[in-house]
């Protein structure tokens, strides 16, 4: 039976993670994410899981990777300053192909910024925060109910692709309370850890990165049953470091392809009235809620406008936007940063099209009327002649 309860975004994130099978949480308190840690501290011990408050975010990130390599689904949550500290470890998780989930409840930045106010300035940090080319998946819900469902998806994708998944939220989404219908068991899919059970006390060392026929994701070794080696150094399929350039190139391309070739399966988005739209509003996270309202209001004025809401931020849904660009003459991007997604969008929509960025970086949520204004002005400009 589905259950209807009142939940805060951060609570939904923690409870959804537990539902997804997360049994290890390590974190360091930071506004506006701390409720996630508090729920984990309360709930995990009841079900045999482990909560630990680490000495900093460097330790938190390291601990969840350690726990995951030891066989337990693991997560941490933080906000901008802590997310910056976790970056080196995120790269390690990419290199050691470790399924882990990093939640970043965004505040205004940079630096300590606006601790208690929303921001969306970590879009690029989520993509490129760690050094070197690396594969990454980033999800960003926009309602509390979606937080619950999508954090489960985040764990699934992490397991499926053996990769870290960044789960973005923002202060509004983290703290808003909404009534939520928790999905019944039959409606949720949970991908459990693929570990190699065939390995008894193996003579040979387990090859943690061996490509196998018909097996897309290499199972993780089971500690205690076999032995394996992982390193952040460039390595071959055995997991041991090698310095040869052909192996380095092959590894980096394989890692990139893991996500790139499966982008269609990973990418999720939501569309509202885009079919006959001439203007497309693009917004995500809590701003998408304002955008939806603005689009509905504009439609009442007979403006042909639609909403595109990327749910998967990385890989970015370029393909779908390219399709939409064929019949779109104007784009409004609304985001709480200085145009991080707008820059990506501008790679698809050409200069002949109208382009407007509605941006706020003052810690205030963008309101429906600000977006509606931009739509109305753009439409007026398009129909002037």
């Amino acid at each position, binding site marked *: 039976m589905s259950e209807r309860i009142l939940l805060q975004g951060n609570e939904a994130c923690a409870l959804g993670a537990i539902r997804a099978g997360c049994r290890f949480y*390590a974190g360091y308190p930071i506004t506006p994410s701390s409720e996630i840690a508090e729920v984990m501290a309360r709930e995990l011990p*009841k079900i045999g899981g482990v909560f630990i408050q680490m*000495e900093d975010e460097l*330790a938190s990130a*390291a*601990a969840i990777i*350690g*726990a*995951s390599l030891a066989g337990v689904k693991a997560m941490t949550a933080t906000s901008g300053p802590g997310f910056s500290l976790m970056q080196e*470890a995120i790269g390690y998780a990419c290199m050691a192909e470790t399924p882990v989930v990093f939640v970043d409840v965004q505040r205004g930045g940079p630096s300590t910024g606006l601790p208690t106010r929303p921001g969306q300035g970590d879009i690029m940090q989520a993509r490129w925060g760690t050094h070197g080319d690396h594969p990454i998946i980033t999800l960003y819900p926009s309602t509390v109910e979606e937080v619950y469902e999508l954090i489960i998806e985040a764990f699934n994708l992490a397991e499926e692709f053996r990769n870290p998944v960044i789960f973005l939220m923002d202060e509004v989404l983290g703290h808003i309370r909404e009534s939520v219908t928790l999905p019944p068991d039959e409606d949720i899919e949970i991908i459990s850890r693929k570990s190699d059970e065939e390995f008894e006390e193996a003579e040979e060392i387990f090859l943690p990165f061996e490509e196998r026929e018909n097996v897309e994701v290499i199972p993780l070794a089971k500690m205690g049953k076999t032995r394996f080696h992982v390193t952040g150094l460039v390595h071959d399929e055995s997991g041991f470091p090698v310095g040869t350039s052909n192996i380095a190139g092959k590894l980096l391309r394989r890692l990139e392809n893991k996500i790139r070739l499966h982008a269609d399966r990973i990418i999720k988005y939501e569309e509202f009235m885009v079919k006959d739209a001439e203007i497309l509003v693009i917004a995500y996270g809590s701003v998408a809620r304002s955008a939806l309202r603005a689009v509905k209001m504009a439609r009442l004025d007979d403006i042909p406008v639609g909403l595109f809401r990327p749910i998967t931020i990385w890989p970015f849904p370029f393909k779908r936007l390219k399709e939409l660009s064929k019949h779109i003459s104007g784009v409004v991007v609304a985001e709480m940063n200085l145009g991080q997604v707008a820059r990506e969008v501008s790679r698809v929509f050409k200069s002949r099209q109208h382009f407007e960025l509605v941006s706020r970086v003052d810690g205030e949520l963008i309101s429906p009327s600000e977006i509606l204004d931009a739509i109305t002005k753009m439409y007026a400009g398009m129909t002037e002649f």
Partner: protein
Amino acid sequence: MKTAKLIEYLRVDRMPTVWCPGCGNGIIMKATVDAIDRLGLSKSEVAIVSGIGCSSRVTGYLDFNTLHTLHGRAIAFATGVKLARPDMTVIVMGGDGDMLAIGGNHFIHACRRNLNLTVIVFNNSIYGMTGGQYSPTTPTYAMASTAPYGSIEKPFDVVDLATSSGATYVARSTVYHYELTVKFIKAAIEHKGMAVVDVITNCHTYFGRYNKIPDPSEMLEQFKEKSIPLSKAEELSENELKDRIIIGEFRKVESPDFQELYKQLQEKARGEDGYKA
């Protein structure tokens, strides 16, 4: 014969090691597998975690579950491993820079938590891998590539730091004292709670060369001459102990470790209200 047996625990196909000829790291590696062998642990039930540095490359040569992680973070990774798999024996190995500079915070907090880990510090008083820069254990006035006029900083005493931070087993040995090193590592693994073994080792390539002891055997001779057992040291004055290496078991106390307390916490949490999944 003994050595031949210990080779079973090594990944000989990954050798030669990155270590310079005469480096003490090999002695600590051997002492570790010797201790594991004497304890009769199976290779699959041991996880060894290291950070980054010459000494941290040890995980690449040891045939266990081995995690070669990030500079300074080995103890934090190991915390995750141990709490996820309490049944595994988890050993952390690495350099003085890795454990006490960039990883110093994790070191003291793991001690404070009394996590059931064995931490082996390869203490060569220098950053070997990056070319001989001074480290948190470089003695005052010793030379290093970034201390061309001698270091003016005071070094950490690993034993003092571990003890005052709450580690429940703390010992020091040197690579000259092989049997003692094996004994302490074995005791550390057997110990329930945070166990730290500070092993003084030689980096003749950098520390030695910069400080006029470029010959590894001479460095080992110095370790022998400078070392003094804890029982004897207790009778000497601070002045008499200057430049001496005090070796022995400094702390060995029984105290509930993190895991034991966490188990109690879990029971308490379960008792309060039934969990609804």
